[in-house]
Protein backbone atom coordinates (compact mmCIF):
# COMPACT_ATOMS: atom_id res chain seq x y z
CA UNK A 1 0.00 0.00 0.00
CA UNK A 2 1.36 3.39 -1.00
CA UNK A 3 2.34 6.11 1.42
CA UNK A 4 -0.25 8.22 -0.37
CA UNK A 5 -3.00 5.77 0.53
CA UNK A 6 -1.89 5.64 4.16
CA UNK A 7 -1.97 9.43 4.24
CA UNK A 8 -5.51 9.33 2.76
CA UNK A 9 -6.68 6.82 5.38
CA UNK A 10 -5.31 9.00 8.16
CA UNK A 11 -6.96 12.16 6.85
CA UNK A 12 -10.26 10.32 6.34
CA UNK A 13 -10.17 9.00 9.90
CA UNK A 14 -9.65 12.53 11.21
CA UNK A 15 -12.53 13.77 9.05
CA UNK A 16 -14.82 11.09 10.47
CA UNK A 17 -13.77 11.93 14.02
CA UNK A 18 -14.33 15.63 13.33
CA UNK A 19 -17.82 15.12 11.87
CA UNK A 20 -18.93 12.66 14.54
CA UNK A 21 -17.37 14.66 17.37
CA UNK A 22 -18.95 17.99 16.46
CA UNK A 23 -22.31 16.44 15.57
CA UNK A 24 -22.39 14.53 18.89
CA UNK A 25 -21.45 17.63 20.84
CA UNK A 26 -23.95 19.98 19.22
CA UNK A 27 -26.56 17.19 19.10
CA UNK A 28 -26.16 16.74 22.86
CA UNK A 29 -26.41 20.47 23.50
CA UNK A 30 -29.74 20.49 21.64
CA UNK A 31 -31.00 16.98 22.41
CA UNK A 32 -30.07 16.94 26.11
CA UNK A 33 -32.25 19.87 27.23
CA UNK A 34 -34.94 18.78 24.75
CA UNK A 35 -34.95 15.28 26.27
CA UNK A 36 -35.14 16.69 29.80
CA UNK A 37 -38.06 18.87 28.75
CA UNK A 38 -39.82 15.98 27.01
CA UNK A 39 -39.53 13.91 30.18
CA UNK A 40 -40.64 16.62 32.60
CA UNK A 41 -43.39 18.32 30.59
CA UNK A 42 -45.71 15.34 30.42
CA UNK A 43 -49.09 15.72 32.09
CA UNK A 44 -48.79 15.85 35.87
CA UNK A 45 -44.99 15.99 35.81
CA UNK A 46 -42.65 18.67 37.12
CA UNK A 47 -43.09 21.21 34.31
CA UNK A 48 -46.46 19.87 33.15
CA UNK A 49 -47.12 21.34 29.67
CA UNK A 50 -48.94 18.54 27.84
CA UNK A 51 -49.67 20.53 24.68
CA UNK A 52 -46.11 21.73 24.16
CA UNK A 53 -44.98 18.22 24.99
CA UNK A 54 -47.18 16.74 22.28
CA UNK A 55 -45.99 19.21 19.64
CA UNK A 56 -42.31 18.69 20.47
CA UNK A 57 -42.82 14.93 20.57
CA UNK A 58 -44.33 15.07 17.11
CA UNK A 59 -41.43 17.14 15.75
CA UNK A 60 -38.95 14.67 17.23
CA UNK A 61 -40.82 11.72 15.76
CA UNK A 62 -40.91 13.30 12.30
CA UNK A 63 -37.18 14.08 12.42
CA UNK A 64 -36.49 10.53 13.50
CA UNK A 65 -38.59 8.89 10.82
CA UNK A 66 -36.93 10.57 7.82
CA UNK A 67 -34.30 8.19 6.38
CA UNK A 68 -30.87 9.71 6.92
CA UNK A 69 -29.83 9.85 3.29
CA UNK A 70 -33.05 11.70 2.42
CA UNK A 71 -32.51 14.08 5.34
CA UNK A 72 -29.02 14.86 4.02
CA UNK A 73 -30.21 15.98 0.59
CA UNK A 74 -33.53 17.54 1.65
CA UNK A 75 -31.92 20.07 4.00
CA UNK A 76 -29.28 21.25 1.54
CA UNK A 77 -30.76 24.80 1.40
CA UNK A 78 -30.76 25.00 5.18
CA UNK A 79 -27.17 23.73 5.33
CA UNK A 80 -26.06 26.31 2.76
CA UNK A 81 -27.77 29.08 4.75
CA UNK A 82 -26.16 27.91 8.00
CA UNK A 83 -22.53 27.22 7.01
CA UNK A 84 -22.34 28.94 3.62
CA UNK A 85 -21.90 25.74 1.63
CA UNK A 86 -23.73 22.48 1.18
CA UNK A 87 -20.67 20.49 0.21
CA UNK A 88 -17.76 19.23 2.27
CA UNK A 89 -16.99 17.85 5.68
CA UNK A 90 -18.22 20.85 7.68
CA UNK A 91 -21.47 20.96 5.71
CA UNK A 92 -22.01 17.26 6.46
CA UNK A 93 -22.05 18.04 10.17
CA UNK A 94 -25.41 19.80 9.79
CA UNK A 95 -27.50 16.75 8.77
CA UNK A 96 -25.57 14.57 11.22
CA UNK A 97 -26.45 16.95 14.04
CA UNK A 98 -30.08 17.15 12.96
CA UNK A 99 -30.25 13.36 12.96
CA UNK A 100 -28.46 13.09 16.31
CA UNK A 101 -30.38 15.69 18.33
CA UNK A 102 -33.85 14.06 18.35
CA UNK A 103 -32.29 10.63 18.85
CA UNK A 104 -30.32 11.90 21.84
CA UNK A 105 -33.45 13.69 23.10
CA UNK A 106 -35.39 10.40 23.19
CA UNK A 107 -32.51 8.57 24.90
CA UNK A 108 -32.16 11.29 27.55
CA UNK A 109 -35.95 11.38 28.01
CA UNK A 110 -36.02 7.63 28.67
CA UNK A 111 -33.21 7.83 31.23
CA UNK A 112 -34.82 10.76 33.05
CA UNK A 113 -38.20 9.03 33.19
CA UNK A 114 -36.60 6.03 34.84
CA UNK A 115 -35.61 8.10 37.88
CA UNK A 116 -37.71 6.99 40.86
CA UNK A 117 -40.61 9.43 41.32
CA UNK A 118 -40.05 9.16 45.08
CA UNK A 119 -36.86 11.18 44.65
CA UNK A 120 -38.79 13.97 42.95
CA UNK A 121 -41.31 13.93 45.78
CA UNK A 122 -38.50 14.08 48.35
CA UNK A 123 -36.91 17.04 46.57
CA UNK A 124 -40.25 18.85 46.32
CA UNK A 125 -40.76 18.23 50.03
CA UNK A 126 -37.38 19.94 50.63
CA UNK A 127 -38.65 23.03 48.87
CA UNK A 128 -36.68 22.54 45.64
CA UNK A 129 -37.59 24.56 42.55
CA UNK A 130 -38.27 22.58 39.35
CA UNK A 131 -34.89 23.75 38.01
CA UNK A 132 -33.13 22.52 41.17
CA UNK A 133 -34.89 19.18 40.87
CA UNK A 134 -33.63 18.81 37.30
CA UNK A 135 -30.08 19.87 38.11
CA UNK A 136 -29.57 18.20 41.49
CA UNK A 137 -31.79 15.14 41.27
CA UNK A 138 -32.93 14.10 37.79
CA UNK A 139 -29.74 14.63 35.79
CA UNK A 140 -27.28 13.18 38.36
CA UNK A 141 -29.54 10.19 39.01
CA UNK A 142 -30.06 9.56 35.28
CA UNK A 143 -26.37 10.05 34.43
CA UNK A 144 -25.39 6.38 33.94
CA UNK A 145 -28.30 5.92 31.52
CA UNK A 146 -27.60 9.21 29.76
CA UNK A 147 -23.95 8.28 29.21
CA UNK A 148 -24.90 4.88 27.77
CA UNK A 149 -27.46 6.63 25.54
CA UNK A 150 -24.83 9.08 24.27
CA UNK A 151 -22.54 6.14 23.57
CA UNK A 152 -25.26 4.57 21.47
CA UNK A 153 -25.78 7.89 19.67
CA UNK A 154 -22.06 8.28 18.86
CA UNK A 155 -21.89 4.71 17.53
CA UNK A 156 -24.89 5.44 15.32
CA UNK A 157 -23.26 8.67 14.14
CA UNK A 158 -20.13 6.76 13.08
CA UNK A 159 -22.41 4.65 10.89
CA UNK A 160 -24.32 7.67 9.54
CA UNK A 161 -21.08 9.50 8.77
CA UNK A 162 -20.32 6.84 6.15
CA UNK A 163 -23.31 8.08 4.12
CA UNK A 164 -22.39 11.75 3.90
CA UNK A 165 -20.13 11.06 0.94
CA UNK A 166 -23.31 11.83 -0.99
CA UNK A 167 -22.75 15.54 -0.30
CA UNK A 168 -18.96 15.43 -0.43
CA UNK A 169 -18.64 14.90 3.30
CA UNK A 170 -15.57 12.70 2.86
CA UNK A 171 -14.45 10.62 5.82
CA UNK A 172 -13.86 6.87 6.13
CA UNK A 173 -17.14 5.66 4.66
CA UNK A 174 -16.70 7.80 1.57
CA UNK A 175 -13.13 6.55 1.17
CA UNK A 176 -14.31 2.96 1.33
CA UNK A 177 -16.98 3.53 -1.31
CA UNK A 178 -14.83 5.53 -3.74
CA UNK A 179 -11.60 3.52 -3.52
CA UNK A 180 -12.62 0.17 -2.15
CA UNK A 181 -15.80 -0.26 -4.22
CA UNK A 182 -15.63 2.02 -7.25
CA UNK A 183 -11.87 1.53 -7.88
CA UNK A 184 -11.80 -2.17 -6.97
CA UNK A 185 -9.36 -1.85 -4.08
CA UNK A 186 -10.63 -4.45 -1.59
CA UNK A 187 -7.63 -3.94 0.70
CA UNK A 188 -8.67 -0.28 1.22
CA UNK A 189 -12.24 -1.39 1.91
CA UNK A 190 -10.97 -3.90 4.47
CA UNK A 191 -8.78 -1.36 6.26
CA UNK A 192 -11.67 1.16 6.36
CA UNK A 193 -13.94 -1.43 7.92
CA UNK A 194 -11.28 -2.44 10.45
CA UNK A 195 -10.70 1.19 11.49
CA UNK A 196 -14.45 1.69 11.94
CA UNK A 197 -14.76 -1.47 14.00
CA UNK A 198 -11.92 -0.29 16.23
CA UNK A 199 -13.53 3.14 16.56
CA UNK A 200 -16.90 1.68 17.55
CA UNK A 201 -15.27 -0.69 20.02
CA UNK A 202 -13.32 2.13 21.58
CA UNK A 203 -16.36 4.41 21.89
CA UNK A 204 -18.48 1.61 23.36
CA UNK A 205 -15.87 0.62 25.95
CA UNK A 206 -15.19 4.23 26.90
CA UNK A 207 -18.92 4.90 27.29
CA UNK A 208 -19.44 1.86 29.47
CA UNK A 209 -16.47 2.76 31.62
CA UNK A 210 -17.72 6.31 32.17
CA UNK A 211 -21.28 5.07 32.87
CA UNK A 212 -19.94 2.64 35.47
CA UNK A 213 -18.05 5.48 37.15
CA UNK A 214 -21.32 7.39 37.51
CA UNK A 215 -23.33 4.38 38.61
CA UNK A 216 -23.42 4.04 42.40
CA UNK A 217 -26.59 1.97 42.46
CA UNK A 218 -24.99 -1.42 42.95
CA UNK A 219 -22.60 -2.00 45.83
CA UNK A 220 -19.17 -3.09 44.65
CA UNK A 221 -15.67 -3.43 45.86
CA UNK A 222 -14.42 0.12 46.14
CA UNK A 223 -10.80 -0.85 46.72
CA UNK A 224 -10.94 -0.73 50.51
Amino acid at each position, binding site marked *: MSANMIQLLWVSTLQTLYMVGVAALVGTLIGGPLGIFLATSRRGELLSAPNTNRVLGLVVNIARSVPFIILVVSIIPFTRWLVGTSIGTTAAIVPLTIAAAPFIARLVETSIREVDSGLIEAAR*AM*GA*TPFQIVRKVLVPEAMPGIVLGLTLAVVSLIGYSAMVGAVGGKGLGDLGIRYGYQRFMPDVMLIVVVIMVVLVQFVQSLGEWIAARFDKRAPRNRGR
Partner: protein
Amino acid sequence: MTEAEDRDQPAISFQNVTRAFPQKGGAGDVLALDDISLEVPAGTITGIIGRSGAGKSTLLRLVNGLERPSRGKVLVAGQDVGTATGAALRDIRRKVGMIFQHFNLLSSRTVAGNIGLPLEIAGTPRAEIAPRVDDLIRLVGLDAQRDRYPAELSGGQKQRVGIARALATRPRVLLSDEATSALDPDTTRQVLALLRDINRELGLTILLITHEMAVVRDVCDHVAVIEGGRIVESGPTYGVFSRPDHPTTRSFLKGVTDVALPGFVASRMQPQPQGPDAQAIMQITFTGQNATTPMLSRMTVECGIETNILAGAIEEIGPNPFGSLIVSLPHQRLQEARGFLAEYGMITEELGYVG
Protein backbone atom coordinates in the same frame (compact mmCIF):
# COMPACT_ATOMS: atom_id res chain seq x y z
CA MET B 1 -44.38 35.94 66.68
CA THR B 2 -42.53 34.98 69.85
CA GLU B 3 -41.42 31.51 70.89
CA ALA B 4 -43.93 31.51 73.78
CA GLU B 5 -46.82 32.07 71.41
CA ASP B 6 -45.45 29.33 69.21
CA ARG B 7 -45.71 26.86 72.06
CA ASP B 8 -49.37 27.56 72.64
CA GLN B 9 -50.65 27.11 69.14
CA PRO B 10 -50.83 23.68 67.57
CA ALA B 11 -47.93 22.85 65.27
CA ILE B 12 -50.31 21.58 62.65
CA SER B 13 -54.01 22.22 62.41
CA PHE B 14 -56.42 20.65 59.94
CA GLN B 15 -59.68 22.57 59.77
CA ASN B 16 -62.60 20.83 58.05
CA VAL B 17 -60.31 19.51 55.35
CA THR B 18 -61.82 17.66 52.42
CA ARG B 19 -59.80 16.27 49.56
CA ALA B 20 -61.73 15.02 46.56
CA PHE B 21 -60.18 13.27 43.57
CA PRO B 22 -62.10 13.44 40.31
CA GLN B 23 -62.74 9.99 38.95
CA LYS B 24 -61.96 8.88 35.42
CA GLY B 25 -65.06 8.82 33.22
CA GLY B 26 -66.69 11.62 35.24
CA ALA B 27 -68.39 9.26 37.67
CA GLY B 28 -68.25 11.87 40.42
CA ASP B 29 -65.52 12.57 42.94
CA VAL B 30 -63.89 10.16 45.33
CA LEU B 31 -63.44 11.64 48.78
CA ALA B 32 -59.96 10.71 50.01
CA LEU B 33 -60.49 12.92 53.03
CA ASP B 34 -63.91 13.87 54.31
CA ASP B 35 -64.20 16.91 56.57
CA ILE B 36 -61.16 16.23 58.74
CA SER B 37 -60.45 18.42 61.75
CA LEU B 38 -57.39 17.58 63.80
CA GLU B 39 -54.83 19.45 65.82
CA VAL B 40 -51.28 18.27 66.32
CA PRO B 41 -49.94 19.82 69.54
CA ALA B 42 -46.44 21.33 69.29
CA GLY B 43 -43.67 19.11 70.59
CA THR B 44 -45.66 15.88 70.47
CA ILE B 45 -45.45 12.74 68.42
CA THR B 46 -48.83 12.18 66.84
CA GLY B 47 -49.67 9.05 64.94
CA ILE B 48 -52.28 8.58 62.27
CA ILE B 49 -53.18 4.96 61.83
CA GLY B 50 -55.28 3.51 59.08
CA ARG B 51 -55.44 0.80 56.47
CA SER B 52 -54.07 1.40 52.99
CA GLY B 53 -56.49 3.62 51.09
CA ALA B 54 -57.89 5.14 54.28
CA GLY B 55 -56.49 8.54 53.32
CA LYS B 56 -53.61 8.81 55.77
CA SER B 57 -51.03 9.38 53.07
CA THR B 58 -53.09 12.18 51.52
CA LEU B 59 -53.53 13.72 54.98
CA LEU B 60 -49.77 13.73 55.60
CA ARG B 61 -49.01 15.27 52.20
CA LEU B 62 -51.34 18.18 52.90
CA VAL B 63 -48.92 19.37 55.56
CA ASN B 64 -46.12 20.21 53.11
CA GLY B 65 -48.34 21.05 50.18
CA LEU B 66 -47.61 17.93 48.14
CA GLU B 67 -51.41 17.64 48.19
CA ARG B 68 -53.91 20.48 48.21
CA PRO B 69 -57.18 20.50 50.14
CA SER B 70 -60.35 20.75 48.05
CA ARG B 71 -62.03 22.49 50.96
CA GLY B 72 -60.88 23.56 54.40
CA LYS B 73 -57.57 24.82 55.75
CA VAL B 74 -54.24 23.32 56.75
CA LEU B 75 -52.15 25.50 59.04
CA VAL B 76 -48.51 24.79 59.88
CA ALA B 77 -47.21 27.06 62.64
CA GLY B 78 -50.03 29.42 61.79
CA GLN B 79 -49.23 29.58 58.07
CA ASP B 80 -51.83 28.43 55.57
CA VAL B 81 -50.23 25.71 53.44
CA GLY B 82 -53.24 25.10 51.25
CA THR B 83 -53.11 28.45 49.51
CA ALA B 84 -49.34 29.04 49.55
CA THR B 85 -47.57 28.93 46.19
CA GLY B 86 -44.12 29.51 44.76
CA ALA B 87 -41.51 30.89 47.14
CA ALA B 88 -43.93 31.00 50.11
CA LEU B 89 -44.71 27.30 49.70
CA ARG B 90 -41.01 26.41 49.36
CA ASP B 91 -40.34 28.38 52.51
CA ILE B 92 -42.95 26.37 54.43
CA ARG B 93 -41.52 23.13 53.04
CA ARG B 94 -38.09 23.99 54.42
CA LYS B 95 -39.68 24.17 57.88
CA VAL B 96 -41.24 20.73 57.44
CA GLY B 97 -38.93 17.71 57.11
CA MET B 98 -40.17 14.45 55.66
CA ILE B 99 -39.01 10.83 55.78
CA PHE B 100 -40.28 8.04 53.57
CA GLN B 101 -41.00 4.32 53.63
CA HIS B 102 -38.55 3.70 50.79
CA PHE B 103 -36.08 6.34 52.05
CA ASN B 104 -35.90 8.17 48.67
CA LEU B 105 -32.16 8.77 48.89
CA LEU B 106 -30.18 9.84 45.83
CA SER B 107 -28.15 6.84 44.69
CA SER B 108 -25.61 9.17 43.10
CA ARG B 109 -24.74 10.92 46.36
CA THR B 110 -22.88 9.74 49.44
CA VAL B 111 -24.39 9.85 52.91
CA ALA B 112 -22.91 13.32 53.43
CA GLY B 113 -24.07 14.43 49.98
CA ASN B 114 -27.63 13.30 50.63
CA ILE B 115 -27.78 15.02 53.99
CA GLY B 116 -26.41 18.23 52.47
CA LEU B 117 -28.95 18.29 49.63
CA PRO B 118 -31.72 20.25 51.41
CA LEU B 119 -29.13 22.80 52.50
CA GLU B 120 -27.89 23.23 48.92
CA ILE B 121 -31.50 23.64 47.84
CA ALA B 122 -32.06 26.28 50.51
CA GLY B 123 -28.99 28.14 49.24
CA THR B 124 -26.89 27.64 52.38
CA PRO B 125 -23.25 28.68 51.77
CA ARG B 126 -20.92 25.75 51.17
CA ALA B 127 -18.79 26.60 54.20
CA GLU B 128 -21.81 26.24 56.48
CA ILE B 129 -23.04 23.01 54.93
CA ALA B 130 -20.04 20.84 55.85
CA PRO B 131 -20.11 21.41 59.65
CA ARG B 132 -23.92 21.10 59.74
CA VAL B 133 -23.74 17.78 57.85
CA ASP B 134 -21.07 16.53 60.28
CA ASP B 135 -23.32 17.39 63.25
CA LEU B 136 -26.24 15.55 61.70
CA ILE B 137 -24.14 12.49 60.86
CA ARG B 138 -23.07 12.34 64.50
CA LEU B 139 -26.67 12.83 65.68
CA VAL B 140 -27.88 9.76 63.77
CA GLY B 141 -24.74 7.73 64.49
CA LEU B 142 -23.39 7.25 60.96
CA ASP B 143 -19.84 8.58 61.43
CA ALA B 144 -18.32 5.49 59.80
CA GLN B 145 -20.59 5.67 56.76
CA ARG B 146 -20.03 9.33 55.89
CA ASP B 147 -18.64 8.71 52.38
CA ARG B 148 -20.62 5.59 51.56
CA TYR B 149 -23.32 5.43 48.92
CA PRO B 150 -26.90 4.38 49.81
CA ALA B 151 -26.48 1.07 47.96
CA GLU B 152 -23.82 0.14 50.51
CA LEU B 153 -26.06 0.76 53.53
CA SER B 154 -28.58 -1.38 55.41
CA GLY B 155 -32.25 -0.37 55.57
CA GLY B 156 -31.88 1.06 59.06
CA GLN B 157 -28.82 3.08 58.05
CA LYS B 158 -30.66 4.41 55.00
CA GLN B 159 -33.53 5.59 57.19
CA ARG B 160 -31.03 7.28 59.51
CA VAL B 161 -29.70 9.17 56.50
CA GLY B 162 -33.31 10.04 55.64
CA ILE B 163 -33.87 11.37 59.16
CA ALA B 164 -30.63 13.38 59.16
CA ARG B 165 -31.54 14.82 55.76
CA ALA B 166 -35.03 15.75 56.98
CA LEU B 167 -33.51 17.59 59.95
CA ALA B 168 -30.88 19.48 57.94
CA THR B 169 -32.82 22.71 57.56
CA ARG B 170 -33.82 22.69 61.24
CA PRO B 171 -37.53 22.13 60.62
CA ARG B 172 -40.19 22.51 63.34
CA VAL B 173 -42.19 19.59 62.06
CA LEU B 174 -41.15 16.14 60.85
CA LEU B 175 -43.50 14.08 58.71
CA SER B 176 -42.98 10.34 58.66
CA ASP B 177 -44.58 8.37 55.86
CA GLU B 178 -44.55 4.73 57.02
CA ALA B 179 -40.88 5.24 57.85
CA THR B 180 -40.46 1.86 59.51
CA SER B 181 -42.73 -0.26 57.34
CA ALA B 182 -39.87 -1.55 55.19
CA LEU B 183 -37.67 -2.37 58.19
CA ASP B 184 -37.32 -5.49 60.33
CA PRO B 185 -38.62 -5.38 63.93
CA ASP B 186 -35.21 -4.75 65.52
CA THR B 187 -34.35 -1.92 63.15
CA THR B 188 -37.86 -0.53 63.56
CA ARG B 189 -37.30 -0.26 67.30
CA GLN B 190 -33.98 1.53 66.79
CA VAL B 191 -35.41 4.00 64.29
CA LEU B 192 -38.41 4.70 66.56
CA ALA B 193 -36.08 5.25 69.50
CA LEU B 194 -34.12 7.73 67.38
CA LEU B 195 -37.34 9.58 66.51
CA ARG B 196 -38.27 9.67 70.18
CA ASP B 197 -34.84 11.10 71.08
CA ILE B 198 -35.08 13.75 68.40
CA ASN B 199 -38.56 14.68 69.56
CA ARG B 200 -37.31 15.15 73.12
CA GLU B 201 -33.97 16.80 72.42
CA LEU B 202 -35.02 19.16 69.65
CA GLY B 203 -38.62 19.68 70.75
CA LEU B 204 -39.60 18.68 67.24
CA THR B 205 -43.25 17.95 66.43
CA ILE B 206 -43.56 14.62 64.64
CA LEU B 207 -46.59 13.56 62.63
CA LEU B 208 -46.35 9.99 61.47
CA ILE B 209 -48.60 7.68 59.54
CA THR B 210 -48.51 3.94 59.96
CA HIS B 211 -50.62 0.84 59.69
CA GLU B 212 -48.95 -0.78 62.70
CA MET B 213 -50.44 -0.21 66.15
CA ALA B 214 -47.09 -1.26 67.66
CA VAL B 215 -45.50 1.90 66.22
CA VAL B 216 -48.21 4.03 67.83
CA ARG B 217 -47.79 2.17 71.12
CA ASP B 218 -44.01 2.65 71.13
CA VAL B 219 -43.68 6.33 70.28
CA CYS B 220 -46.91 8.25 69.88
CA ASP B 221 -48.30 10.63 72.50
CA HIS B 222 -51.47 11.12 70.49
CA VAL B 223 -53.19 8.98 67.95
CA ALA B 224 -55.90 9.45 65.37
CA VAL B 225 -57.57 6.50 63.68
CA ILE B 226 -58.60 7.16 60.09
CA GLU B 227 -61.06 5.08 58.12
CA GLY B 228 -62.66 5.89 54.78
CA GLY B 229 -61.31 9.45 54.83
CA ARG B 230 -62.74 10.23 58.26
CA ILE B 231 -61.12 10.34 61.67
CA VAL B 232 -63.14 7.84 63.66
CA GLU B 233 -61.30 8.16 66.94
CA SER B 234 -58.53 10.34 68.33
CA GLY B 235 -56.93 11.33 71.60
CA PRO B 236 -53.97 10.58 73.82
CA THR B 237 -52.57 7.16 72.90
CA TYR B 238 -53.10 5.77 76.35
CA GLY B 239 -56.78 6.66 76.42
CA VAL B 240 -57.44 5.26 72.97
CA PHE B 241 -55.61 2.04 73.80
CA SER B 242 -57.39 1.50 77.08
CA ARG B 243 -60.87 2.48 75.93
CA PRO B 244 -61.13 1.98 72.19
CA ASP B 245 -64.56 3.08 70.98
CA HIS B 246 -64.56 2.37 67.30
CA PRO B 247 -64.47 -1.14 65.78
CA THR B 248 -61.60 -0.09 63.49
CA THR B 249 -59.54 0.92 66.50
CA ARG B 250 -60.33 -2.38 68.18
CA SER B 251 -59.27 -4.33 65.14
CA PHE B 252 -55.96 -2.44 65.01
CA LEU B 253 -55.45 -3.16 68.68
CA LYS B 254 -55.82 -6.89 68.15
CA GLY B 255 -52.47 -8.52 68.55
CA VAL B 256 -51.00 -5.43 70.18
CA THR B 257 -52.87 -5.35 73.48
CA ASP B 258 -55.14 -8.33 73.12
CA VAL B 259 -54.43 -11.47 75.04
CA ALA B 260 -55.55 -14.68 73.45
CA LEU B 261 -57.84 -17.01 75.32
CA PRO B 262 -56.26 -20.47 75.72
CA GLY B 263 -57.75 -22.97 73.28
CA PHE B 264 -59.09 -25.38 75.89
CA VAL B 265 -61.18 -22.57 77.38
CA ALA B 266 -62.28 -21.02 74.11
CA SER B 267 -63.60 -24.33 72.78
CA ARG B 268 -65.80 -24.91 75.82
CA MET B 269 -67.16 -21.41 76.17
CA GLN B 270 -70.95 -20.85 76.32
CA PRO B 271 -72.97 -17.64 76.21
CA GLN B 272 -74.87 -18.57 79.42
CA PRO B 273 -73.87 -20.43 82.62
CA GLN B 274 -74.87 -24.10 82.36
CA GLY B 275 -75.02 -25.06 86.04
CA PRO B 276 -74.23 -23.97 89.60
CA ASP B 277 -70.49 -24.69 89.18
CA ALA B 278 -70.10 -22.72 85.96
CA GLN B 279 -67.20 -20.30 85.82
CA ALA B 280 -67.48 -16.84 84.29
CA ILE B 281 -64.68 -15.76 81.97
CA MET B 282 -63.83 -12.09 82.30
CA GLN B 283 -61.28 -9.82 80.69
CA ILE B 284 -59.81 -7.06 82.84
CA THR B 285 -57.95 -4.11 81.38
CA PHE B 286 -55.59 -2.33 83.77
CA THR B 287 -54.60 1.22 83.08
CA GLY B 288 -52.39 3.84 84.67
CA GLN B 289 -51.08 3.18 88.15
CA ASN B 290 -53.68 0.42 88.59
CA ALA B 291 -51.66 -1.69 86.21
CA THR B 292 -49.12 -2.20 88.95
CA THR B 293 -51.43 -2.61 91.98
CA PRO B 294 -52.25 -6.17 92.99
CA MET B 295 -56.01 -5.76 92.43
CA LEU B 296 -56.83 -9.45 92.17
CA SER B 297 -55.28 -10.27 95.55
CA ARG B 298 -57.08 -7.33 97.07
CA MET B 299 -60.38 -8.56 95.65
CA THR B 300 -59.75 -12.00 97.13
CA VAL B 301 -59.01 -10.49 100.54
CA GLU B 302 -61.79 -7.89 100.60
CA CYS B 303 -64.61 -9.75 98.84
CA GLY B 304 -63.54 -13.35 99.17
CA ILE B 305 -63.76 -13.84 95.40
CA GLU B 306 -61.15 -16.27 94.14
CA THR B 307 -59.98 -15.91 90.56
CA ASN B 308 -58.00 -18.12 88.29
CA ILE B 309 -55.72 -16.37 85.77
CA LEU B 310 -56.01 -17.86 82.28
CA ALA B 311 -53.99 -15.43 80.22
CA GLY B 312 -52.42 -12.03 80.60
CA ALA B 313 -49.94 -9.46 79.39
CA ILE B 314 -48.50 -6.20 80.56
CA GLU B 315 -47.20 -3.73 77.98
CA GLU B 316 -45.91 -0.23 77.92
CA ILE B 317 -47.65 2.50 75.97
CA GLY B 318 -45.26 5.39 76.03
CA PRO B 319 -44.27 5.70 79.70
CA ASN B 320 -47.42 4.00 81.03
CA PRO B 321 -47.91 0.34 81.83
CA PHE B 322 -50.98 -1.24 80.32
CA GLY B 323 -52.22 -4.65 81.33
CA SER B 324 -54.77 -7.10 80.15
CA LEU B 325 -55.82 -10.25 82.03
CA ILE B 326 -58.31 -13.00 81.38
CA VAL B 327 -59.56 -14.69 84.55
CA SER B 328 -62.24 -17.17 85.52
CA LEU B 329 -64.36 -16.92 88.67
CA PRO B 330 -67.61 -18.40 90.04
CA HIS B 331 -70.38 -16.97 87.84
CA GLN B 332 -72.58 -15.99 90.75
CA ARG B 333 -69.92 -13.50 91.88
CA LEU B 334 -69.35 -11.91 88.46
CA GLN B 335 -71.40 -8.73 88.97
CA GLU B 336 -69.90 -8.16 92.39
CA ALA B 337 -66.36 -8.54 91.01
CA ARG B 338 -67.04 -6.18 88.12
CA GLY B 339 -68.41 -3.60 90.51
CA PHE B 340 -65.37 -3.86 92.75
CA LEU B 341 -62.91 -3.48 89.86
CA ALA B 342 -64.87 -0.63 88.28
CA GLU B 343 -64.45 1.35 91.50
CA TYR B 344 -60.72 1.24 90.90
CA GLY B 345 -61.09 2.44 87.32
CA MET B 346 -60.62 -0.88 85.63
CA ILE B 347 -62.43 -1.94 82.53
CA THR B 348 -64.00 -5.37 82.63
CA GLU B 349 -65.66 -7.35 79.91
CA GLU B 350 -67.66 -10.55 80.21
CA LEU B 351 -66.45 -13.01 77.60
CA GLY B 352 -68.63 -16.07 78.40
CA TYR B 353 -69.04 -19.06 80.67
CA VAL B 354 -67.44 -22.46 81.01
CA GLY B 355 -69.13 -25.52 82.53
